[in-house]
């Protein structure tokens, strides 16, 4: 009887259709991720996490990246990247690149612009027109495309909307709920004076713009007075040539 059952199970097992779905990430070149650079790939998991040396990255499902140089240079093509810790990493987009010291920041690629959100790093954004913008902790900035004056369009540095940020952050956070709540509270405490900070930033930017306008006016006046003097000199020269000779 035992033999009968053994043989029966053996035969039955060959009747069962077993299919294994291999989760192969979409990558170009094929299967390049973790093996060679440059490598472009698309995140297919719900919560993607990458850790190598001091670099810790998270990304949303559907995000597309190109790893240009291992742990040194990444390019975000679509989606959102949460850099939890990557001191010497440069994250590039079409018209800008971000370099942050150890600390957290986010890079979000939208349809026609890229948003850089600084949580706790020292974050410097270099635009394609070589301008540099430092984003303080608790602030974000959007960077667009090149405008008619050959400058990269970008927004003002503004405080992060914590409510909408928490949704994205919670979606990628892999720790426990209590830990997440404690981190959120820490961040709220650290960012308590963002309103005053933003006031200071806007004041500086306005003063800088006003000074630039004053400079332009002064230069225009100087140019006009130089032209006037030149005109007088030529008139004098002409008068001398005509009446004195």
């Amino acid at each position, binding site marked *: 009887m035992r*033999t*009968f059952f053994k*043989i*029966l199970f053996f*035969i*039955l097992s060959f*009747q069962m259709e077993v299919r294994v779905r291999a989760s192969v990430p*979409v990558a*170009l070149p094929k299967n390049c991720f973790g093996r060679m650079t440059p490598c*472009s790939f*698309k995140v297919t998991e719900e919560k993607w996490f990458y850790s190598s040396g001091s670099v810790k990255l998270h990304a949303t499902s559907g995000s*597309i990246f*190109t790893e240009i140089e291992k742990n040194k240079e990444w*390019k975000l*093509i*679509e989606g959102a990247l949460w850099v939890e810790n990557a001191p010497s990493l440069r994250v590039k987009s*079409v*018209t800008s690149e971000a370099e942050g010291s150890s600390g957290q920041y986010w890079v979000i690629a939208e349809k*026609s612009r890229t948003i850089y959100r600084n949580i706790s790093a020292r974050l410097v954004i270099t635009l*394609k*027109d070589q301008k540099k913008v430092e984003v303080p902790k608790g602030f974000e900035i959007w960077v*667009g*495309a*090149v*405008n*008619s*004056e*050959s*400058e*990269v*369009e970008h927004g003002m540095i503004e405080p992060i909307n914590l409510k909408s940020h928490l949704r994205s952050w919670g979606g990628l956070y892999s720790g426990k709920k209590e830990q997440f709540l404690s981190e959120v509270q820490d961040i709220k405490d650290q960012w308590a004076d963002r309103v005053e900070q933003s006031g200071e930033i806007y004041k500086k930017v306005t003063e800088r713009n006003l000074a630039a306008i004053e400079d332009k006016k002064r230069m225009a006046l100087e140019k006009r007075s130089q032209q006037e003097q030149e005109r007088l000199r030529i008139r004098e020269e002409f008068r001398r040539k005509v009446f004195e000779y």
Partner: protein
Amino acid sequence: MRSSSSLFLIVCLSITVGLLWGYGEFTAYFNQGKEYQIQVRQLEKKLEREEFNYALLRNQLVDFQQSVAVILPPNSQIRNDVASYELKNFSGSLRVPASIAQLDLSGLFFEKGKKFFKEQKYEKAIKEFRKVLDEYPLSRYKIESHFFIAESYFLQKDYKNSLDLVDQMLVQYPDNDLTGFVMLRMGQISELNNRLEEASEIYKTVQSNFKSEQLRRQAQSLITDLQVE
């Protein structure tokens, strides 16, 4: 005894195998959709790959566009002559559109709306005037567009929408003469709803607050008509 039990075992096994095979064949015959499901899954995977390749290529193209755009001279430095025509065209196609001021076509829509209004095609007129308000919020035809929309609704006997527009004009342009005219319409709506005292108050307000002679004369005439009634 032993041979009979072995024979029994063999028969049972054969029947089992036969049943299983028959089940497999029936399932394959009646469940042909399974093949299509496999095909669909393969096509979905192929589509995912193509979309990924497209995203990469598009990104490369935009990257190249932006790199070229940043090294071209600014628009303000490109001369407006025949020699620079191609350069201007090229830079215009590369740059982000929002950096250039839009052409103001509000006049065109406003005239179209007025034409429809004169032809008593009020629905079409409202559509054109709304375009002026929605697409060109800083247009000089803004106040008149508001007025014409309110008038069109009134003439269509859509008093609720007309009153909404009157309210908007009262808030946004309280000192404009056209607001006075739509207030007269508000008074007329009150008259139609048998709220004669309210109508009278509105006419008196218009008479006392607006300086336009035509407006004051109209308000006075409406007050007189009300008193006669």
